[in-house]
């Protein structure tokens, strides 16, 4: 894949470049601020963008705003954040599928990180487990109606896993996973449709509800 990276800390930017190259991706550009990111995307037309939230010149949420802009054109974006902010996660998820929001710490788990990148590029939605954990510990209605197993399944959905992957992770059959998911949808009042988007809606139900 062709990737554009935006990260203002040089050490980290170079680390990300070598990590992605190690996994066989091509880094088209690695830049240090949001404006340069938008310019690099126009120039290189990458398959996916990896960006930090906080970047020059204001060191506020420039990276996130740039990511939201790129998402309007449907470009897959993986946003790395120094810490979990529900607001940011919700804003990103509302832009549809093919988006990821991970704690920066996760790049240390190189394999999982590379895997998350692939999934976002393929159009999945990846939310940091920490976001999900916070939501599950806080919400009561209607999330409180979910069984512990269903919560586990939902947190894995939020991480962008497919049913087969969830089944492997929880060491159950795929049919059992499908049953849990049906239970989640029912309890969250998500009517059955042909649209796979319901999985994202389920996650969104936490973030914005």
């Amino acid at each position, binding site marked *: 894949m062709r990737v554009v990276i935006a990260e203002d800390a040089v050490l980290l930017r170079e680390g990300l470049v070598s990590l992605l190259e190690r996994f066989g991706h091509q880094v088209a550009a690695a830049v240090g601020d949001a404006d340069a990111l938008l310019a690099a995307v126009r120039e290189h037309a990458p398959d996916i963008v990896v960006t930090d939230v*906080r970047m020059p010149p204001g060191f506020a949420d420039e990276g996130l705003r740039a990511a939201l802009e790129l998402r309007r054109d449907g470009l897959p974006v993986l946003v790395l954040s120094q810490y979990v902010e529900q607001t940011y996660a919700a804003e990103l998820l509302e832009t549809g599928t093919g988006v990821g929001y991970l704690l920066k710490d996760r790049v240390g788990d190189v394999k999982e990180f590379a895997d998350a990148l692939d999934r976002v590029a393929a159009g999945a939605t990846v939310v940091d487990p920490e976001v999900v954990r*916070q939501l599950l510990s806080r919400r009561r209605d209607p999330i409180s109606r979910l069984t512990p197993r269903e919560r586990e399944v939902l947190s894995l959905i939020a991480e962008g896993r497919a049913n087969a992957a969830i089944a492997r992770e929880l060491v159950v059959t795929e049919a059992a996973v499908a049953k849990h998911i049906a239970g989640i949808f029912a309890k969250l009042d998500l009517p059955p449709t042909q649209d796979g988007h319901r999985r994202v809606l389920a996650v969104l139900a936490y973030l914005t509800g």
Partner: protein
Amino acid sequence: MSTSALEALGSRPLPFLRSSWPWRALAYLLAGAVFCVVPLVVAALSEVLPGWGAVGAGIVALVAFGPFVARFERWRMRLVDLSPVPGTRERRREIGLAVLTLVAFWWIDLAIVGVAVGGPLLLVLSPVVQPEAAGAIAVAASFVGIALVPVGAYVLTAWAGARAAMVRAVLAPERAELEEVRRSRARLVDAFEVERRRIERDLHDGAQQRLVALTMTLGLARLDVPDEAPLARTLDRAHGEAKQVLAELRELIRGVHSQVLTDRGLAAALGELAARSAVPVTIETDLDVRLPPPVEIAAFYVAGEALTNATKHSSATNITIKVEKSRESLLITVTDDGHGGADPAAGTGLTGLADRLDVVGGRLTLSSPPGGPTTIRAEIPCA
């Protein structure tokens, strides 16, 4: 030890008479004699200049001498009042004081010194100054004079103290004093806030980035080591520890300064606060505008402290944070369904909250009957 002449008047007579206060009062009042020069000069001028010229000269003298009079008054006030006079340096007040001093105070000062010192002195000296009086009467008058010395001391000190209080009231009204204290506290709080942001920035740009890079390097190194190699276990452990440090650092940084508050405002920051709370929190707000940073920070602080208190002490199972914005103030109400009985005197948390609010001119009210519920209300002006 008293700190002012007026205060000294309240002490017992003997210690008072033995103290330096009557003498200080005398020196204070006598120093006022220098002002008699100004009316004398103006009077002399009126001989030379036509009537209106003298009036004009008088006014010019008042305006020109105002600051000097004020400085002199501040300086000599230390004789009878040890607490410092805060400086407002208002021209209007200084001229007012000059008028008061030149028109009235200086001769009242001298008249009182004359009565309080001169009266007893004359009586004591009556055998000398009134040789024509009968010897017995003169001696009796001397004794009366001696008996009047303490009275004179009280009169001197009382007038000096009252005069100093009047000068202080003109030069440094209490309102200005409180206002200055409040402003200085606000400056302090601002400085702390700037410092916290700087610390957060430094940790974020420095240690945090390096630790992320370290975990990444360890992760990449691990890829090159086969699972069964002994090095793999060591690397895994190092990796795990680095991640643990990173997680702890993240919590620490978050406690220092809320980035989301700066970026997205109060409603978003309260949302994050609620998300991390161990007790379920409901937030009710229709706040969709950004408020001045000191207001947002103070409100966020109130909510944070109230949440911590409720979680730690009240065994609440449900907390509601309500934020309402009226035209001139922000009202933040935190209610929990715990067992109540919160006592502001018991810990420093609630007092600290009240202090923190005071800086932005806000008010804190607490209702926490035994058995609950506890409601903390903070009102912060933000016109």
